[in-house]
């Protein structure tokens, strides 16, 4: 391939992290541990539940990534949590160094791992534009040249000389994104920045990114869990799994590969520890560990059957009454419908087994992803997630042959009533 046209080249990039305790925070603890080890005693600072052999073990967050990315490409990077997406971006942005491998970058990289980096509350919008631009690598004269464009894009002209502490969070994001979108860099990196801001602004940003790639021949790298923005923006997708590239190519096929890879096709007995649990539900004391589709060899159901499941939970502290959620998603990862269970009591700490059953009467036909969650409700009756798996398993409902999901959709609604109108 023509090297002139390359924008990024990664060769054998690896990144190693150490498991367990990296080091103690104070000199005193280090000396304590050292003394205990010398005397052959247990380390008093060892975290409970970790063994000495585990601490000090290494794992590869990236395990040999080779990539060639050309100018003007709009690349999406997808993968489960912990697949190495963020590590990859951090290395390309030079926030952290690779353990092994070589990276070549042609052009300047501007990263937006989080918008508004370097913004200071006491400074005005205008001052922050200069600050933020300079942090992202622009010179003063470059910022001067596009200051007006940035202010226009942000739609914040009247507030530009107000300290940003008086901005709403939406305004803050708009300003930050506007700076980043006008950077004179050849490679733009974004990590789910579009998750914030209103819909109209989101669309404007996506359009800006597309234009940057198509007209200005810049390279865009975009990481997201939101498949619909990936679809809108990217013309090539990379799927990461446990630090390796498992798919590289067309966006639609990549999304399908990602979803299928994270779920064994039509499995009925699943170790949920291997699935990607949603990040906000960390260490709540409740974890789903195993799921069995009762009396099934393959996850294929007839219309009218019930989806019966046996769910194993592990509780590490006494849990409140638990509610269960099941969300159906289409193959294109669009949310279709959600069912909730009433709250049930669990006893004590340890393994809990729950039987769930959902009648599939209204499901007409199709292949579905099921998201599974455990919730509790707070004093105000709001549901608080304890553990959630967005893609827990995949199943199929065989409906009537005449039902066409393209035309009729996935759900059969209850029959309409019809009667002759009274005259």
């Amino acid at each position, binding site marked *: 391939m023509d090297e002139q046209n390359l924008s990024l080249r990664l060769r054998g990039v*690896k990144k190693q*992290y150490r498991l367990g305790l*990296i*080091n103690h*925070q*104070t*000199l*005193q603890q*280090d000396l304590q541990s050292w003394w205990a080890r010398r005397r052959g005693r247990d380390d008093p600072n060892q975290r409970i539940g970790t063994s000495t052999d585990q601490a000090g073990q290494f794992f590869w967050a990236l395990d040999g990534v080779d990539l060639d990315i050309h100018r003007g490409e709009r690349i999406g990077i997808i993968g489960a949590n912990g697949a190495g997406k963020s590590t990859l971006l*951090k*290395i390309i*942005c*030079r*926030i*952290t*160094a*690779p*353990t*092994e*491998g*070589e*990276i*070549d*970058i*042609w*052009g*300047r*990289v501007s*990263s937006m*791992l*989080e918008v508004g*980096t*370097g913004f*200071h509350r*006491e*400074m005005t919008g205008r*001052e922050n534009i*200069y*600050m933020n631009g*300079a*942090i*992202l*690598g622009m*010179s*003063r004269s470059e910022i001067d040249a596009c200051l007006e464009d940035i202010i226009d894009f942000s739609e914040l002209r009247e507030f530009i000389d107000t*300290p940003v502490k008086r901005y709403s969070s939406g305004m803050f994001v708009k300003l930050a994104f506007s700076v980043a979108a006008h950077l004179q860099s*050849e490679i733009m990196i974004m990590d789910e920045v579009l998750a914030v801001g209103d819909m109209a602004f989101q669309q404007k940003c996506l359009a800006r990114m597309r234009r940057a790639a198509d007209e200005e021949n810049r390279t865009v790298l975009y990481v997201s869990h939101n498949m619909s923005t990936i679809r809108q923006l990217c013309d090539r997708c990379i799927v990461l799994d446990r630090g390796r590239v498992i798919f590289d190519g067309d966006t639609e096929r990549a999304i399908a590969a990602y979803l299928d890879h994270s779920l064994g096709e039509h499995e009925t007995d699943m170790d949920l520890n291997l699935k990607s649990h949603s990040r906000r539900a960390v260490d709540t004391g409740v974890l789903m560990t195993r799921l069995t589709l009762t009396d099934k060899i393959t996850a294929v159901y007839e219309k009218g059957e019930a989806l019966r499941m046996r769910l194993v939970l592990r509780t590490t502290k006494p849990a409140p009454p638990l509610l269960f959620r099941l969300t159906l998603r289409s193959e294109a990862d669009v949310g279709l419908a959600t069912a909730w269970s009433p709250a049930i009591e669990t006893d004590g700490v340890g393994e809990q087994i729950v039987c769930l059953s959902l009648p599939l009467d209204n499901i007409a036909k199709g292949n579905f992803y099921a998201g599974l969650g455990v919730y509790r409700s707070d004093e105000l009756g709001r549901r608080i997630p304890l553990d959630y798996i967005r893609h827990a398993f995949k199943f199929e409902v065989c409906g009537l042959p005449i039902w066409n999901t393209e035309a009729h959709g996935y759900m059969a609604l209850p029959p309409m009533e019809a009667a002759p109108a009274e005259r």
Partner: protein
Amino acid sequence: MQHTHISAKQGLFDLKLRELWQYRDLVWLFTRRSFIVTYTQTILGPLWLIINPLLTGITYVVLFGNIAKLSTDGVPQLLFYLSGHAIWSFFSGCVVKNASTFADNAYLFGKVYFPRLVIPVSNVLGNAILFLIQMLLVFALLLWYSFQGLVHPLWSIWILLPFLLLLLGVMGMGTGLIISSLTTKYRDLRVLLDFGMTLWMYATPVVYPLSAVDASLRRYILINPVSPVIELFRHILFGVGDVSSASLAYSFFFTVAAALAGIVIFNHVERTFMDTV
């Protein structure tokens, strides 16, 4: 087009100074930001830059001049203490501010790349500006006293002042960077720092002149690489003090060594710092 090569292996003495130059606007912006942030929503604003040292100077006059009756080499007391305080706070500011580089900027370092040395350099620049503002006060007093014939500045060698400032700034930065790299691993070293800096001040001829020190003790005071620089500073300003070129050369070599060690360690820690916080 700019080409960057990132490799797992990096030369020990790759100081990345050229890249630092490309980011010089950022150095200035960081310096400016620290001033804006400190003085917005204060009543007296930048006036504090004058009031603070003035109050400290007066305290020193009472404490060291009148109660402890320390010698000032014949220099008027307020002038002696103000100038001593100005130059020492420049040095200690460079050390202390840089010692917390990683802790203060973790949120930035974790989000975006820029040459990390920008921060230490802007810290030194900020402290130099503070110093110059304090020097306005010192200069005014100096003119007043020299008209009265109480002090005799060596105007002809004032040209040395910028070099002296650079020497002290780089020494402070190097020392601070070494400490900052250590504090990423051991946070309790930061507690020691304040105490250590106070101790260091008393081991430096700041509130007393070197000439007031016993000949037997003077050896030890001169092990401290800051001492000769402060004496030189006073020599330039007031025409008093002991300066030997040997002790200055010692300070110079210490500075070069501290700066090199500081930058090398800093660059090394910076590469993987984000993995350990």
